[in-house]
C-alpha cells in the first residue's frame, strides 16, 4: 500500500527530528551539570569527573578497534604517550623547559616550539595517528594473537624510546610544571566529540563494513570490502583520539614520565571496554565512568572502621580485592559485559518505556 509506506516515511522523519531534539536536550543537560560542578562542585569531584571524561575518550576510541573491528590491539598506551609528550612539549614555556632538562638540554626544534592548547592537542592526536599509519603496515599483515603481540611490542618500544631519548622526552626524569589547561569543558568536550564521531562512524557504511570484517573477514572480502582500508581507518581515528586524550591527561596531572604509559594503562582500558561490553560505544562509556568513579568510591573499604568500640585498621589494597570481585560478578552474570553489543538510543528507550510499562 502506498499510503502505509508514506506513513512509515513520515514516522521515520518525525523520529529523526525527535531524536535530534533529544540529543540536543541531553547535551544541554550535560553542559548544565558540568556548569554546576564547575561552579559549586569540590575539586575532588571535578578531578574525578575529569578523569572520567578522559577515560571515556580513551575507552570509546579503543573500543573502535577491539570491539567494533574485533582486533585485539594492545598498544593504545603508545598513542597516549605520543599525544601526551607532543602536547606537553608544545605548551611548556621555554623557561619551564630549561628548568626541566637538567641532564641533557632539549633538542633544537622542540626547545623553541610553542603553541596554544588546542593546537597542541590536535598536534598530539595527529602525530599519534601518523605513528599509527606507520605501524599499520606491519600490524595488519597479521591477525589474532600475532597482532596482539605486535601491538604490545609497539607499546613497549614507545615507552623505551621515551626513557632513552633524553634530549626530547627528558628520559625517566619526566616532565613537570605543565600548565593546568584541562578543565571540565575541555575533557567533556573532547569526550562528546569522540563519542559522536565514533558512533557516527560505526553507524555508517564504513562501520558496517568493520563489523562485517569482525564477524568473518573472508566473507567480507568476498562481498567486496577491503579489510586493510577499513581497519586502517579505524586504527587512525582511534589513535588520533587516544593522542588527544593523552594531551588532556598530561595537562590534568601536570607531570608525565614513561611510567605513566606502561602496559597497565592498556590493561585498564581493556577492563573498561570488556566490563562495558565489547563492541558497544555505550558500554565503553559506562565502563570508563564506572572505572574512574568506582576506584575512588571504593576507598571507603580501605578506611579504618569503628564497629562497637572495636577499631579495625584499614587494609590498603582492599579496594582492589573488592574491585576484582565486582569484575568477576559482572563477567559471570553478564558474560558480554554490561551492554553486550547493544547501544543506547532514544528509539530503544521509548520502545522499552512503552512496552516495558505495558508488560509490567
Amino acid at each position, binding site marked *: 500500500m502506498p499510503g502505509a509506506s508514506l506513513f512509515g516515511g513520515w514516522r521515520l522523519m518525525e523520529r529523526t527530528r525527535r531524536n535530534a531534539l533529544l540529543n540536543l536536550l541531553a547535551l544541554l543537560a550535560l553542559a548544565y551539570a558540568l556548569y554546576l560542578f564547575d561552579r559549586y562542585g*569540590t*575539586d*575532588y*569531584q571535578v*578531578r*574525578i569527573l575529569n*578523569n572520567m571524561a578522559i577515560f571515556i575518550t580513551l575507552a570509546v576510541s579503543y573500543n573502535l578497534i577491539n570491539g567494533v573491528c574485533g582486533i585485539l590491539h594492545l598498544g593504545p598506551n603508545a598513542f597516549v604517550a605520543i599525544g601526551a609528550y607532543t602536547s606537553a612539549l608544545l605548551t611548556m614555556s621555554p623557561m619551564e623547559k630549561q*628548568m*626541566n632538562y*637538567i*641532564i641533557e638540554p632539549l633538542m633544537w626544534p622542540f626547545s623553541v616550539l610553542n603553541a596554544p592548547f588546542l593546537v597542541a592537542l590536535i598536534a598530539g592526536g595527529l602525530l599519534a595517528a601518523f605513528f599509527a599509519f606507520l605501524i599499520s603496515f606491519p600490524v595488519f599483515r597479521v591477525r589474532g594473537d600475532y597482532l596482539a603481540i605486535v601491538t604490545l611490542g609497539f607499546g613497549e618500544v614507545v615507552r*623505551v624510546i621515551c*626513557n*632513552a631519548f*633524553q634530549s626530547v622526552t627528558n*628520559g*625517566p*626524569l*619526566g616532565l*613537570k*610544571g605543565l600548565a*593546568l589547561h584541562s578543565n571540565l569543558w575541555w575533557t567533556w568536550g573532547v569526550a562528546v566529540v569522540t563519542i559522536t564521531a565514533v558512533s557516527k562512524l560505526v553507524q555508517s557504511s564504513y562501520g558496517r563494513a568493520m563489523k562485517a570484517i569482525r564477524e568473518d573477514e573472508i566473507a567480507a572480502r568476498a562481498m567486496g570490502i577491503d579489510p586493510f582500508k577499513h581497519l586502517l581507518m579505524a586504527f587512525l581515528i582511534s589513535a588520533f583520539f587516544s593522542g588527544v586524550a593523552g594531551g588532556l*591527561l598530561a595537562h*590534568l*596531572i*601536570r*607531570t*608525565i*614520565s*614513561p*611510567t*605513566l604509559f606502561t602496559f*597497565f594503562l592498556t590493561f585498564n582500558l581493556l577492563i573498561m571496554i570488556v566490563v562495558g561490553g565489547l563492541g558497544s560505544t555505550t558500554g565503553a562509556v559506562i565502563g570508563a565512568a564506572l572505572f574512574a*568513579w568506582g*576506584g*575512588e*568510591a571504593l*576507598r*571507603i573499604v*580501605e578506611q579504618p572502621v569503628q564497629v562497637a568500640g572495636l577499631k579495625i585498621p*584499614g587494609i*590498603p*589494597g582492599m*579496594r*582492589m580485592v573488592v574491585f576484582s570481585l565486582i569484575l568477576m560478578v559482572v563477567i559471570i552474570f553478564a558474560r558480554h559485559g554490561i551492554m553486550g553489543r547493544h547501544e543506547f538510543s532514544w528509539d530503544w528507550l521509548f520502545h*522499552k518505556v512503552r512496552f*516495558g510499562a505495558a*508488560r*509490567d
Partner: protein
Amino acid sequence: MSAKRILGWTSVLSILLFGMAGICLAQDIVKIGAYLPMTGAVAAYGESEWAGIQIAKEMEPEVLGKKIETVLVDTKSDKIEAANAMTLLVEKEKVVGVLGEAISGNSMAGNPISEAAKIPTVSPTATNPLVNQGKQYAFRACFIDPFQGEVAARFAKNELKAQTVAVIIDIAQDYCVGLANFFVKEFVKQGGKVLSTTYIQTGDQDFSAQLSAVQAAKPDVIYAPNYYTEDALLAKQARDLGIKVPILTGDGAQEEALLKIGGAAVENMYFTGHFHKQAATSARAKEYIKRFEEKHKGKEADAFSALGADAYFLLVDAIKRAGSTEGPKIREALAKTKDFEGISGKITMGENGNPIKSMVINKVEGGKFVYVTTVNP
C-alpha cells in the same frame, strides 16, 4: 528495561552522587595526611615509610595540645591515583600537612595540588631534583640525587683512591640516571677519568656485554647506582669474570634482598645512603630504633622507615614552632628548620625545601651491611 532494573540503576547513581559528597569533621584534632604507594610496583617503599610514620606518631602523638590523626591514602604507585589522593586529602580530609609520596614521579603529580591549596608537603624519599623545583610548599626529608652523586664521587676519589671509573647505569630509572650524571660531573671535576659508560635496563638478567667493556677498560672502581636486583646480579657476573675492583652504588641497592641474591659476590660493595643504625646516635634516633625493633621483630630499622619518621617529625616540629596549623605559617617554619635532630641525622632546610644533611657510607662485610663513615655536607 524493567522497573526493577531502573530501580537498580537509580540506586547506583544515587550512591555515585552521595559517595562524592564531602564529610566534615570536628576540629579538636590535627590531621596529617599521608599519600603513599601501599600497593602496586613500589608498595615496599610505602609500607616501610608508613611503618616509620606510625612509630614516629607513637613517639609524638600530640602537637599544640591537640591529638594528631594520620590519614593514609593509597596511590597504587600511580600518578593519576596520586593526584586523586592528594586532592582527597586536601579537600575532603582537610589535612594541615601531607607526608609523601615515596617516589618522585608521583610527588610531582601531587605537589601542584598542595601548592595551590597552600598545604605543605614533606616527602620522605622523593630524590629527583625536579620535585621541589619552583615550589613553595614542597619539602623533603631526604637529600637529592645531585648531592648523593657528588658525595659518591668525592668518596671514590678521596677514600677509595680511584683515578678512573666505569659507570653502569640502569637507564629505565630516573633515580639511577640522575645519580650517575651528577657523579660523573663531580668525578671529572675532581680530576678523575671516566673510562666507560654502559647502560642496562631494569629486569635485565645478563650483563656480560657491559662487563666485558668494563673489563677491557680496567677502571679502579665501578660506579653502578642501580637498584638491588640488578646490582646483585651485576656483582655476581663481574666476580665470575674476574673483575675484582670495588663496586660503589647508591641507597637504592641497600636492601636485604641484595645479600640474598648476591651472596659472597657483593662483599665489599660500598653504598652512599641516608641511614645506618650505627650512625644514628641522637636520643630520638635510639628511642626510635628501640621501638621499631620491638614492634617489628626480626627486622632492622631501615632507611625508608627512618625517613618516613623524619618526614613526620619535621612536619610536627614545624607546626610546633609555627604555633599554628595554617599552611603558610607551617611552611615558613619548615623552611627555617635548622639543625633538627632527626632519625637519619641533623637536618637543615636548604634552598627549595631540599635538606642539607650528612650522608652515611656503608658496605657489605660478612654478609651484613656495616657502617663505614659519615660524610658531612
